[in-house]
């Protein structure tokens, strides 16, 4: 008979290794449908690796994909740490993009060193405010933030579409529902000439370091952890739970808003209603793969971005549908959850016979 029992101590190497093993397991599992689709899994993964990392251009594409995922992943991770289930990263991303466009398409004329911080700030504030509502509703009335943030995603997307058909529509767009272009002064510069990877990546990495430092070393971080791990005890000990939750909500929304700024001001140059292929939702997967650790978010975002970018190349090379990428991502999330279980529990073969005692 197999007995499940909790591990007495958490093994740190095991906890760190678990996501890596989960990623490998997901790859192995995904090989099955790839083989069914008529391709050689090894060749398929070869295409994926070279598509994601095989050239400077490929790597730049992967990093471009990584950039918003770092920020939305961090947004989810920081909120989840406080048990604030922010599913609204997508909406907050669009709120940030909208603010960037409102400010950065000519409304203000200033040099780059003013415009870039201003655009980033505007996006962060917009994202933060867009998450403030659900957080206040949760604190005041116990409204489930999973529901409110999720539904607000659709509200925001419709609002963006409305704005793109109306006030924000670019008169030069020949009827396409898209905004005017971000001015050169407000655009995030490219990091490598003639490549698409842009300064949004730096914003993301700085945010990761800042959040990591905050969680580890500051009173705020400690309060967030306390509230997330045991809110009643935190309250009993005098931690201002409401203020902490609001702080986390603002931070999480701001990070997701920054992701929107990066996409619009660093990559696309103008806002459309298909700016994000679900970066807000993928951010949740990134956060879970990262075990909610800020530094882990970078690795998880890179992994997911490379799977998506690589899958495109695999699809072109072998004629396998690029939906395989979604499959790999989903399988790795499942594998991480299972892996998380095994870091906390172990299986033991138990004998029922009353034989001599062992160990």
């Amino acid at each position: 008979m197999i007995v499940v029992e909790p591990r007495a101590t958490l093994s740190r190497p095991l906890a760190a290794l678990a996501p890596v093993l989960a990623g490998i397991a997901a790859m192995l599992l995904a090989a099955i449908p790839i083989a069914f689709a008529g391709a050689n899994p090894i060749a398929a993964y070869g295409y994926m690796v070279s598509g994601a990392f095989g050239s400077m251009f490929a790597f730049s594409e992967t990093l471009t994909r990584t950039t918003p995922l770092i920020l939305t992943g961090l947004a989810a991770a920081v909120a989840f740490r406080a048990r604030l289930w922010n599913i609204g990263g997508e909406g907050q991303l669009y709120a940030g993009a909208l603010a960037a466009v409102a400010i950065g398409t000519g409304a203000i004329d200033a040099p780059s060193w003013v415009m870039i911080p201003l655009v980033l700030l505007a996006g962060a504030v917009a994202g933060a405010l867009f998450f403030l509502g659900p957080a206040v509703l949760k604190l005041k009335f116990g409204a489930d933030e999973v529901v409110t943030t999720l539904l607000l995603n659709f509200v925001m997307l419709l609002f963006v579409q409305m704005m793109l058909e109306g006030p924000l529509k670019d008169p030069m767009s020949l009827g396409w529902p898209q905004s005017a272009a971000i001015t050169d002064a407000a655009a995030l510069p490219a990091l490598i000439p003639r490549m698409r990877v842009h300064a949004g990546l730096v914003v993301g990495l700085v945010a990761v370091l800042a959040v990591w430092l905050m969680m580890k070393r500051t009173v705020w971080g400690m309060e967030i952890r306390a509230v997330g791990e045991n809110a009643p005890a935190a309250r009993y000990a005098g931690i201002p739970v409401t203020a902490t939750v609001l702080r986390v909500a603002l931070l999480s929304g701001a990070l997701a808003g920054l992701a929107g700024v990066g996409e619009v001001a660093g990559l696309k140059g103008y806002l459309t209603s298909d700016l994000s292929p679900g970066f807000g939702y993928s951010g949740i997967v990134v956060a879970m793969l990262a075990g909610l650790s800020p530094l882990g978010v970078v690795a998880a975002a890179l992994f997911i971005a490379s799977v998506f970018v690589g899958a495109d190349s695999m699809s072109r090379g072998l004629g396998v549908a690029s939906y395989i990428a979604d499959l790999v991502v989903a399988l790795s999330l499942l594998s991480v959850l299972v892996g998380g279980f095994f870091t906390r529990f172990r299986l033991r073969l138990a004998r029922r016979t009353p034989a001599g005692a062992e160990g």
Partner: protein
Amino acid sequence: MTEAPVVLRLDGITRRFGALVANDGIDLDLRRGEIVALLGENGAGKTTLMNILFGHYVADEGVVSVAGADGVLAPLPPGSPHAALAAGIGMVHQHFTLAENLTGLENIMLGTEPILRLRKRAGAARRKVEALMGGSGLTVDLDVQVSRLTVGERQRVEILKALYRDARILVLDEPTAVLTPGESEGLFATVRALAAGGLSVIFISHKLGEVLAASDRIVVLRGGRKVGEMATAEADRRRIAEMMVGREVPASRRTPRERGRVLLSLERVTVAGDHRRSLHDATLEIAEGEIVGIAGVSGNGQAALAALMAGLVRPASGAMRLHGAPVARHDPRAFARLGIARIPEDRHHDGVVGAMTVAENVALEDIREPRFQRAGFLRFGAIRARAAQAIRDYDVRCQGPDIPARLLSGGNIQKLILARGLDREPRLILANQPTRGLDIGAQTEVHRRLLDARARGTGVLLISEDLDELMALSDRIVVISAGRLSAALPAEGLDRGRLGMMMAGHDEERAA
């Protein structure tokens, strides 16, 4: 008296959870019509053993045998509650397992009949239950929804439920935890009557007094092993306590002391809430250097009083004064700053953040003070030093300040909370069930700390369900019943019977 036949035999039961041996080769015989008290501190392995008996756990080693109808012992298939039920083992858990929206009768029948046929077979079932009630003195109105029954009545429904299934062996897990002294005596009388009728009873407890009153034989567990077994008639309190703890137990006792100035006063304070969490018109004074005990059956407003004292709720009406000045801010941090140390009732739920380290937990209340942070950045050195000192001074057994608090035992978590609250020399201590679930050693330690604080002139509000503890520590005792506080009675020479009557309230039994 000739030896009655054995109806249950546990033979070398061993159960391990990882490195922990919860049961280590336990043997136990239960005879027909016998009441055996299973006594032990928390973590001694009582509940594990009973869960194995009932099939919730499977023993790693050992066999449970139950006498069949023919009186022959046969091994019970492990891991099957169904088999245990079929063999005539009934269990009344500490936390009742009744459906609140059904009547007593429906609850008793539940699980023996398909749920849709409950009403069809009600006639036959009612006759059987009424016969059982007549034979045992377990009376309860069968047609009232369980949600409207008192705790004592619910327990009777639980016992009837077991008897209805023809239980020949009845296990009662901490049956008196929720009862008034009067109700407990009623329960013991019932159990005696049932045993005289041939029922065999195992009752689990960590309260010495009731074990001596209610059992034929006592089995003591400690650290998963059976360390003693004796006829109750030959047992004495001191020896059993020593067996449970494994060493001598000093008694906690306050020394008389002059009552100081009034520290805290409540004047006609009302705390709103549903009826289990409300307080009406409470008037109370706590002076320097005195321990005021709050006696009462759980769920009579203690939670509201404790929440008020912890700063978690504000009064709906009435005045709360500290040193004569009205309390302005009702929030936990402000209370901590005012010098009120708070020991929460549920130390795991409200006391510590299990995933955080011992050091972080010790500093949690004061984390914003300049000694622990500079410009918002934590001063880890100071935090760890404080924790190391707390570990030393309060003898917290742990592997150091950096391990997660959840790895500590209940007693050590309580020491951690004491260290956090008492180290800042509080003027007032709220101690809500400070020794519940602790072993005797840790209990003594908590008592000593509270008495030391009292000797330094600190006022203590002690909320407890343990009358012995209240009588030993309190200068004055206030009874709480249905959200109302009685006048304070001097603890010296207080009659337990009178206390019990007050705890039961006037006609709480019928009104509830």
